């Protein structure tokens, strides 16, 4: 008889440890991503819903309109980049369900911590699109007021905004504020140490934070298989004592259902939540990237056939929640929005270079005041830093 066969928990349990298996099981994500829609946009079987509730129809219709607008905005931003009006633009085409779902799961009083790929989410949040694109236009600041919009500056160094989100959420709880914080991270970002430290802090301090991992399959050119050996990025949460879920990130209904639950859980004081949304970056990393060097068009086409906007439109039409006229109106609204954006973005921004010194500190140091004066003297002398004649 082997020792294993004789295994009896009460004999071998390490004092003070207990059975951790049950606790871990309650944190685990579903075995397969939650879905409310199949690839074609038809209703998925209820068994795919997990324990999640179908969002109200008006929420879905609102999400649809914002997704139409978001996609048009994204295309316009890409076009503006090609025309030299933006320094760079990381597209979120194909990730509309996550961009809009993340925003709609929140109240206006909640906070959002976006990355550079969340320009669409910023617009959905109600931020002026010109302000939302200010950073990518090549300016030094984020463009909008984070306090007024309850939206942190778009973060470029991967996952580094995660601990900020946790700290702000913890602070809100201590102040008795009814605030949930949603932080966007990508699949590549989950490899960064700050993501893990943030999860750990969120778990320990029971911070009302929802981590939304948009797994779009690529970190620039590096595919998911080279990013992690984990069966799902959602398993990242379990090791930190955080409830986790995985969802079809191209199913807007499922994304909304899961995120609404996650936000509610955090709001109720039940601690943080991690959601992995399986989605796909249809465009290259940015306009400066060439995706043909690392992936083939068949793969892209397969994901395009699961387009989140088409799936939601199909579903809403089939259920009668929207009509062809509604769809036409949404597209018209998006077109007008893009036209206004185009006009405004074709105006050169008015930047006083001396303002570079204004917000390094609350009060400039004597050295900064001196340097600002030097620059002012150059400007007064007609200096042109673009290489033109002085």
């Amino acid at each position, binding site marked *: 008889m082997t020792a294993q066969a004789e295994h009896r928990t009460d004999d071998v349990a390490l004092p003070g440890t207990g059975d951790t298996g049950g606790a871990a099981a309650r944190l685990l994500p579903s075995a397969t991503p939650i879905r409310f829609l199949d690839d074609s946009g038809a209703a998925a079987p209820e068994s795919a819903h997990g324990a999640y509730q179908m969002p109200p129809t008006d929420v879905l219709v609102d999400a649809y309109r914002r997704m139409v607008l978001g996609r048009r905005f994204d295309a316009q931003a890409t076009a503006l980049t090609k025309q030299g009006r933006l320094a760079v633009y990381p597209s979120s085409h194909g990730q509309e369900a996550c961009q809009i779902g993340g925003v709609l799961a929140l109240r206006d009083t909640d906070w959002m911590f976006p990355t550079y790929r969340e320009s669409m989410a910023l617009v959905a949040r109600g931020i002026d699109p010109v302000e939302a694109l200010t950073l990518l236009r090549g300016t*030094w*600041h*984020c463009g909008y*007021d*984070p*306090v*007024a919009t309850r939206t*942190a*500056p778009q973060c470029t*160094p991967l996952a*580094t*905004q*995660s*601990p*900020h*989100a*946790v*700290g*702000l*959420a*913890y*602070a*809100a709880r*201590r*102040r008795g*504020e009814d605030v949930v914080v949603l932080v966007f991270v990508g699949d590549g970002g989950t490899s960064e*140490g*700050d993501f893990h*430290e*943030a999860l*750990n*802090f969120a778990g*320990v301090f029971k911070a009302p934070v929802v981590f939304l991992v948009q797994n779009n399959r690529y970190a620039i050119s590096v595919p998911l298989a080279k990013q992690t050996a984990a069966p799902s990025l959602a398993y990242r949460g379990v090791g930190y004592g955080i409830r986790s879920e995985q969802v079809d990130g191209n199913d807007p209904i499922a994304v909304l259902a899961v995120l609404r639950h996650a936000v509610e859980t955090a709001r109720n004081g039940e601690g943080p939540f991690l959601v992995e949304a399986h989605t796909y970056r249809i465009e290259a990393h940015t306009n400066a990237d060439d995706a043909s060097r690392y992936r083939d068009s068949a793969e892209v086409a397969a994901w395009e056939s699961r387009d989140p906007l088409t799936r939601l439109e199909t579903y809403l039409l089939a259920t009668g929640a929207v009509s062809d006229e509604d769809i036409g109106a949404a597209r018209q609204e998006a077109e007008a929005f893009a036209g206004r954006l185009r006009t405004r973005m074709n105006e050169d921004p008015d930047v006083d270079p001396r303002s570079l010194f*204004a*917000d*390094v*500190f*609350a009060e400039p*140091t*004597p*050295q900064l005041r001196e340097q600002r004066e030097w620059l002012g003297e150059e400007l007064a002398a007609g200096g042109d830093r673009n290489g033109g004649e002085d």
Partner: protein
Amino acid sequence: MSTTMAQALNAALRDALDQDDSVVVFGEDVGALGGVFRITDGLARDLGEDRCFDTPLAESGIVGFALGMAMNGFRPVVEIQFDAFAYPAFEQLVSHVAKMRNRTRGAVGVPMVIRVPFAGGIGGVEHHSDSSEAYYVHTPGLKVATPATVADAYSLLREAIADPDPVVFLEPKKLYWSKADVDLPVTTAPFGTAEIRRHGTDATLIAYGPALPVALAAAEAAAEDGHDLEVVDLRTLVPFDDVTVTASVRKTGRCVVVQESAGFAGVGAEVAARVQERCFHSLHAPVLRVSGFDIPYPPPIVEKYHLPDVDRVLDTVARLQWDDEPDRRHLTRVSA
């Protein structure tokens, strides 16, 4: 009343916590233990475990978490346990803490303090004695304070906590147990103000933090050699007090910068550059530096060979061309 620097720092934290509900102190082992240097001794017990608390052992997380709290109404004071353990938090400090105000055009300030026990002289094993000030002062958006006296330890820390911007507060470990007769609370000169710790006429020694006592002792010894040295304590490296430094060197015509950290591209190099930019026509000799060598901080049994001491400062003062003799040391190096 005789007070140690450690007690003064503890009192500053205690008074700040007591007077401002938005102040919180956290880090590794700062709660029940009171910090490995006991700077937070009794704070959790007396002011509440929600005011002074332990965190997971992750410096980047600590600093990033503090930034988030600062975005939402708190004034976090975080303790990094030792100088070299701050490096995991470097990205948070440089890319976020230092830049948040600028990235948001002033909408989001970051009133937080990062306390770092720094520098050597206590027989610490590797990674426990780094002089890391150059990394921080080179980062726009961070203020950097280095107290050298008991009174400054209290006053500068209170000012750091009240400051609307992030302050890296470098506490010289070897001075934690230095004593002075100081009645707390005490208010000394504000940030951006250097102090003349000893008035003199023949040369200016510029020092900060752990090097100040060395500079002062050297000045006393030099007096026996007939040189009357002025000693300037920078106190805050950012903001930097050009006015006091410049006035002193223009008066004395000679300048030596004393620092414990490695010399290459260090604070002393910046000070020397600023002095020659502003005092060139007053200088009778090149500005010289006394610093640690450009080596990883050495282990306890040999650290005394690395640390600037009185003799090394006096030797350097002797090379300030008192008899119009050029400083052969540097001439030789150039020709070699």
